[in-house]
C-alpha cells in the first residue's frame, strides 16, 4: 500500500510538472534577488547567506502547501483515503513524504547552489545542505497538519502561513544557526542535535495530528 500510494503521488507530480516545480523555482529566483538588491559583495552576502537561504526555503515550502490535500479534497479522492480501513496516519505520512520528495528535496539541492552563489565557503556548503535535509521535512510535516486543518476552507491561502509561522520558528532559528556556526569555524553539533530532535518529534507526532485534523475538517 505504501509503495503504491507513494508511486501515485510521484506520478501525479510528474504529470503536472508546472505545479511541482513552483517551490524550487521560487526558491532559486527569490534567492537570486538578494545579491541584486543588496550588493554583490562577498563580505556583505556571506554572513547573510544562512538566514536568506532558510527564510526563502520556508516561504517556498508555504507555496506548495495547499497542494497537499486540496486537490484530493476537490476531486473526492480524499474521501476515499478517509474511508479506507488502512491507518490514516500512515496514509498521511506517505503523502507528506511524497510532497517532500517533490517540493522539499529540490529546495535542499537548490540550497547548495544558492549557498555557493552567496559566497558560502565550499567546505560549509555541505553543512547548509545537511541542515536543510533535517529541517525541511519538519517544515513539510508542520505544513501537513495546517493543510489538513484548513483543507475545507476556501480562503486558507493566507491562514496557512500565519498558523505555521510560530511553529516553524525553532526550525528556522536552529537551521540558520547551524550554518552560521559552521561558517564561523565553530561546532554546529548542538544546532544539529536540536534539528534532529525536532525532526524525530515531528515525524512521530505530526502525522497523527494531521490524520485527526483531516477527519475533523471532513466531518462538516
Amino acid at each position, binding site marked *: *500500500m505504501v509503495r*503504491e*500510494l507513494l508511486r*501515485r503521488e510521484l*506520478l*501525479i507530480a510528474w*504529470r*503536472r510538472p508546472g505545479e511541482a516545480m513552483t517551490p524550487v523555482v521560487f526558491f532559486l529566483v527569490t534567492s537570486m534577488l538578494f545579491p541584486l538588491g543588496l550588493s554583490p559583495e562577498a563580505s556583505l552576502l556571506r554572513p547573510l547567506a544562512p538566514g536568506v537561504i532558510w527564510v526563502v526555503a520556508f516561504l517556498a515550502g508555504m507555496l506548495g502547501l495547499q497542494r497537499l490535500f486540496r486537490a484530493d479534497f*476537490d*476531486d*473526492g*479522492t480524499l*474521501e*476515499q*483515503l*478517509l*474511508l*479506507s*480501513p*488502512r491507518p490514516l496516519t500512515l496514509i498521511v505520512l506517505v503523502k507528506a513524504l511524497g510532497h517532500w520528495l517533490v517540493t522539499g528535496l529540490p529546495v535542499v539541492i537548490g540550497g547548495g547552489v544558492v549557498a555557493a552563489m552567496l559566497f558560502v565557503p565550499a567546505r560549509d556548503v555541505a553543512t547548509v545542505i545537511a541542515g536543510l535535509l533535517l529541517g525541511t521535512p519538519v517544515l513539510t510535516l508542520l505544513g501537513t497538519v495546517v493543510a489538513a486543518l484548513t483543507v475545507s476552507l476556501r480562503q486558507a491561502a493566507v491562514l496557512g502561513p500565519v498558523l505555521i509561522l510560530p511553529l516553524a520558528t525553532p526550525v528556522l532559528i536552529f537551521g540558520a544557526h547551524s550554518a552560521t556556526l559552521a561558517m564561523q569555524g565553530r561546532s554546529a553539533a548542538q544546532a544539529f542535535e536540536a534539528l534532529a530532535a525536532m525532526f524525530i518529534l515531528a515525524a512521530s507526532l505530526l502525522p497523527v495530528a494531521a490524520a485527526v485534523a483531516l477527519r475533523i475538517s*471532513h*466531518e*462538516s
Partner: protein
Amino acid sequence: MNGLEAVKPGTAGSARAAAIEAAPGLAVAKLELWRGDYCVCVGLDAAAAPGQVLHLRGANGAGKTSLIRVLAGLSLPESGELRLWGEPARGRMTAYRAAICYVGHSDGIKRELTPEENLRLSACLVLDPSRRTPAEALERVGLAEHAGRPCAEMSAGQRRRTALARLLMSNAPVWLLDEPLVSLDRSGAGLVADLMHEHVAAGGIAVLATHQPVDLTGIDVVEVDLPQGGGSW
C-alpha cells in the same frame, strides 16, 4: 418511513425498533441529523438486510447526501446509532470501513492518472480486494478501450464509470451509492441496475440515494423518504 416520525420508546414504535435491533444488516436507529440549521431527520429508523436495497428518496436539498455521508462514517449525526450486523459502528470504525464501498457525489478519480492506475490504488486501499484485475473491472463497466488514457481526457460519464468500477475492486458487502446515475447515459443507468442486481443476489446490501428512476425490479427495496424542507424549525 417519515423522517419526522419520532419513535417513542415503549410505544408502538418499539416493535419496529426491536425489528431493527434484530436485523442483521445495516441499520440506523433513532437518527437525528442536522445540516447547518436544516433538520434532515429526527428519530429515523431504517434497516436493510443482506439482499436488500435501501433507497433514500427526497427532493434536492432534502439531505440524501448528508445521510449517506453519515452511513459512510464521514460525518457524525447529532444523535442516534449506526449498526452493522447488529453491532454499533462506533468504536469499530476500521471494521466498519472495511465493510463499505462508497461512490460519492464526486468521483474520487485522479484526472492525471489513467483509469487503470486509479483502480490499482483503490484496490490497495481496501483490506479485502476482489480477485478482479483493474482491466477486468474496466471491461465490466465498458471502458476496456480507455484503460490507458488519462482520466482528464475522458468525459464526465466515463469518469463516473471508472468510479463505479471501484465497486468491483473490493468485496465489501455494503455499497453506498450517492446519485450514481449523474452524467451516465442510458446504458450507464442499465449498468448501475445490473451491478446492483448482481451485488444483491450475492447477498450484498446497497444503499442508493437518488431521485432518478433505477430499474430495481425483483429486488427487495426498503424506501426511506426524506421530507422536503419540512424538518426546518
